């Protein structure tokens, strides 16, 4: 079953058309990845889905409800939550405050249960609850960013460049985590520079170039595709 559906989505910013005719599906409990080089519109796509940017044409449907150009907090309330590029955690606030804010779209009575759940996924954050979020290391901040998004009990989690700027060991644990989140029944739409690792954990993938989707298919087929190999995976896979 499809939970997120984009049909012919265009985004224009001033005179520039940034997204052209994007059509994309995410199935229930699936991991779908969007790959492409810098500046092809991946982050714009993610922000448009979350209601930060406006679609100039096309439609977005989530759980059979139209969410096109809905305000971002309404989209979060429906269970579509993003861990944005650059993390955007609240640096001067404590780790606990960041997590509690993540559940702002949920009834207040649920917060402590969600907090317990998220801390079981990120035991490390449990030791830092009173620390300022800005004082965490890059990897810890990324964990906080994902944990904060999970506090909202998403049906679909959008992850924009979760491994950017992290040490290799940390990158591995982020990808392990994505597997774990998925196994708990949350679908994931992932944007990644690290195409190889992203394709390995994905069911389906899209390739973007110049604001359009130029290629799509099951992740293992795309990994084997010659064009993908040479452009994004640096030659033949081993």
């Amino acid at each position, binding site marked *: 079953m499809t939970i997120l559906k984009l049909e012919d989505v265009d985004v224009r910013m001033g005179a520039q058309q940034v997204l052209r005719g994007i059509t994309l599906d995410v199935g229930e409990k699936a991991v779908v990845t969007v790959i492409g080089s810098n500046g092809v519109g991946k982050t714009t796509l993610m922000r448009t889905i979350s*209601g*930060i940017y*406006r679609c100039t044409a096309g439609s977005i449907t989530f759980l059979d409800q139209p969410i096109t150009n809905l305000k971002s907090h309404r989209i979060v309330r429906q269970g579509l939550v993003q861990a*944005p590029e650059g993390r955007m*955690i*609240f*640096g*001067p606030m404590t780790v606990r405050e960041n997590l509690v*804010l993540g559940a702002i*779209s949920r009834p207040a009575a649920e917060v402590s249960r969600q907090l317990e759940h998220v801390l079981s996924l990120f035991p490390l954050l449990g030791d830092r609850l009173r620390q300022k979020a800005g004082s965490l290391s890059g990897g810890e901040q990324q964990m906080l960013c994902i944990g904060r998004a999970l506090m909202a009990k998403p049906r679909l989690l959008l992850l924009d460049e979760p491994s950017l700027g992290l040490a290799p060991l940390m990158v591995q644990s982020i990808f392990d985590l994505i597997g774990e989140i998925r196994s708990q029944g949350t679908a994931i739409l992932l944007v990644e520079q690290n195409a190889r690792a992203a394709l390995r954990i994905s069911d389906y993938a899209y390739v973007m170039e110049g604001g359009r989707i130029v290629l799509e298919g099951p992740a293992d087929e795309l990994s084997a595709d010659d064009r993908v190999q040479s452009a994004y995976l640096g030659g033949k896979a081993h």
Partner: protein
Amino acid sequence: MLDIYFVQQIINGLSIGLVYALMAIGFTLIFGVLNVVNFAHGEVYTVGAFVGLLLITWVAPPLLVVVLAALAVGAVTGVGLERIAFKPFRRFRDEASLRSRAMREATLLSSLAASIVAREVMTLVFGAHMQTIPQAYLLQRPIAIGPLSITNGDVVIFGASLAMLAALQFMLFRTRIGLSIRAVSNSPMGARFVGIDTDRAIIATFAIGSMLGAAAGILVGLYDGTITPQMGFAPGIKAFVAMVMGGLSSIPGAVICALILGVAESVTTDFLASGWKDLVAYAFLIVTLVFFPQGIFGVGRERA
């Protein structure tokens, strides 16, 4: 030995400083979420004073009720002000438009316009002359503490200000709306990604900031014994200076600087004719801008 008169000046200064602090918090909160200065904040203070006066002359309720009414009307005024002078210039589609230079300049003028209109309307309705406070409500009854003589106004201002500061602190750190306000101040984009209704957080900020401003207005009206449509101007400037000294978006910074400013003004009258008193704030402003452009407690927030 410590001069009694001097100690008394310091106590007076702290009372005035607390009033500046209540106002400066309004500036600071609003600057925090929107990066703009609300030039109509002084008029919110005046509105608070007039609401209190009307209530006193019509109903003559207990002082606590007068202050609560000023708080309520302050909240309503703040929300209305936001809707009229700020919201129309905000298009919430990306971070750039939430805190853009164009929005800052537009709201600078729109809030200034709102303040002029509000002041002129109050002048038309109430007249430009001083309104006097009925004797029973004046907060000028002397209280002797040893050799010191303070007034019940000092006590009321201390008590009310500290209670409001404590309530504010509780709100900002323990309630969802307070956490939302702090989150929007820190990262408007991040706030939207977690699902905060930024518009609601901004309205709440105006409501809370204006409540404190309006309460300050009635307290000072009762303390000084006079209320005029222009009364908000001078304390507005002082509070603005305290906000700048405090680093624009630091509440503790603004409160401490407001207290310093109040005490400095009060003590200055020891050395100079009281007509020079208002110069203190401007001198502080210039010194701050020249030597501490980030404010004394500033954290180097970008002002793009």
